[in-house]
């Protein structure tokens, strides 16, 4: 589960990174173009900060538990 194989936390990191990048990217698109989705509290730009949080967590776990890292 550790050095000889891929940790579950790496898989989680990869998925969070992909999702975070997609949602953060969409949030930036909304922010730049001003074309916000028809949802309540759209002015808070949840996709930007929620996507950024997911991206940061994903990168942390993806790098911290990447295959081949001995710890």
């Amino acid at each position, binding site marked *: 589960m550790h050095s000889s194989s891929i940790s579950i936390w790496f898989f989680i990191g990869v998925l969070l990174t992909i999702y975070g990048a997609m949602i953060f990217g969409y949030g930036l698109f909304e922010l730049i173009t001003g074309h916000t989705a028809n949802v*309540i509290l759209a002015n808070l730009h949840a996709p930007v900060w929620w996507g950024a949080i997911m991206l940061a967590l994903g990168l942390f776990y993806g790098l911290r538990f990447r295959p081949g890292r001995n710890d």
Partner: protein
Amino acid sequence: MLGLIPALMVAGLRNSAATFLALSSPSLAHLSPLDIAVIAIYFVMVIWIGFYLKGQANTSEEFFMAGREMTAWIAGLSFVSANLGSLELMGWAGSAYQYGILAAHWYWIGAIPAMLFLGMVMMPFYYVCKTHSVPGYLKLRYGQGASVVAAFSFAFMTVLMSGVNMFAMAEVMKVVLGWDLNFSIIVSSLAVAAYVALGGLRSAIFNEVLQFVLIWGGALLVPILGLIEAGGWTGLKAKIAHNIANGAIPAGDYTHMWRSMGHFSDNPMGIHWTGIVFGLGFAISFGYWTTDFLVVQRVLAANSLRSARMAPVIGSFFKMAVPFIVILPGLLGLVVLQNADGSLMKLVGENVVAAHPGAGLHSYNEVQPLMLVRYCSPGLLGLGITALIAGFMSGMAGNVSAFSAVWTYDIYQPLIVKKARDEHYVAVGRWATILGVVISIGAAYLVMNAKGIMDYVQALFSFFISPLLGAVLMGMFWKRATKAGGFWGLLMGTLTSIGLWAWVKIDPSALRYVAISPDAKDMAENMYRALWSVSVSVIVVFVVSMFGKARPIEELDGLVYGATKIPVEEPVPLYKNEYFWLVIAIIGFLGLNIMFW
């Protein structure tokens, strides 16, 4: 997974969905390409994990017990995730809208004491005797008879419950997204069959941890944004009070858990505090969390006794937090959901929705998807829907992996092929996984064509869990308990549960005797029936054992308290010590109950 969801709620979800289908109403949500991409990536990931772990599931110990290599964190998250299904996410949110914070009892007193008891008191015996399953423990303690009864009832109920869950979820997807029932059933079950059959319990556990993270990532945003809109907890309480004063929502105490528990008629659930404490807090929750192999299997896969004890303690913290993503959205729905004209949206019971076709009414159980649609823009909506799908798949994977282990170890090996090579049993386990999924699909279509079965399946599940608790507790903590005592205790407890259920079914007024009050309502019935059942089970084990000859004490090593030498674990720093975290969990549990008293 459905073990703690009342039958009425599941029936409600089904009725709600059926009503919508009959009305051909438009779906609640419309997915963008970004949302569909989010869902598709999730499926790719779970299959990837299954294929990757295939190479690590070659022996029976690896396939059925994940090699007993799971850390406390992974086992703990998997332990909670196997129970956190989509029906739970949606059903309890609907209950919170209807009954207020009372619904949180099922997460706190209805789970935490039992989880901590499993970890600190029962786990050493399960772990030290190296059993592969709960029926396996019964075999070691009481012999083949009690084990076979428990194994068959568990295997049968597990796949049936999996099918019911599958059907209910497919109907929810039809209502929320307009997806075809067959599409939802086939795609999700194929994915689960693939990754569990390939990677065994390790794959199921890995995916459950992944799904747990997704459920939080997808569902947590709703209460955060909801609280911002409502003006925080204080604003939410003020708005609920305002809506009650206006007559917009029924009068009641929506934000306190114990104040209205003094009498059955004082709260909308029709439950007395004794039912909550002894029925839910002991008979039902201890039965589910300590003897249902679906959840216990995750902890048995831990890499050490300390990890096995820590896993339920870690899980208890997350269980305590689940009301934030389940109960709170239901409460927020009382004040923030609006109709298109800006008026307050009033969710109603399924019977009201059915009685007013075309009126555009929504049922209580739709509060969670309505809240998702209210706040989530493209991408985030896909994430929320993925959380629902992930919850469903984790529950199903839990069912089929547990079925596979019980079928192979407790039915096939002792009764059909007693001596074979290890590879043979691994192959049987893989095929049992696929067989479990196929039977689940069959059960799903059976329920689709005879929907009344769904309510009976819920009741059937409850028949076996509480008596099993009585037999296991007596076997684990009383050296004098005999083989005959265990068998008859299990049988009589089950018959008591079935008898009481049938009595109320034939004569509804009998509820006053079963639940000890004429003011009791349906929810109270389950709690008191479980309490009677476990009591009868314990009494019968005691009485029958007193007339029999106890096993020599040396045969009880590893099985019974007082006859087992528990291994001493190496000293660890305080922050890694299970007793330290046990104390923190107890303080947190008591604090939450006092805070929302």
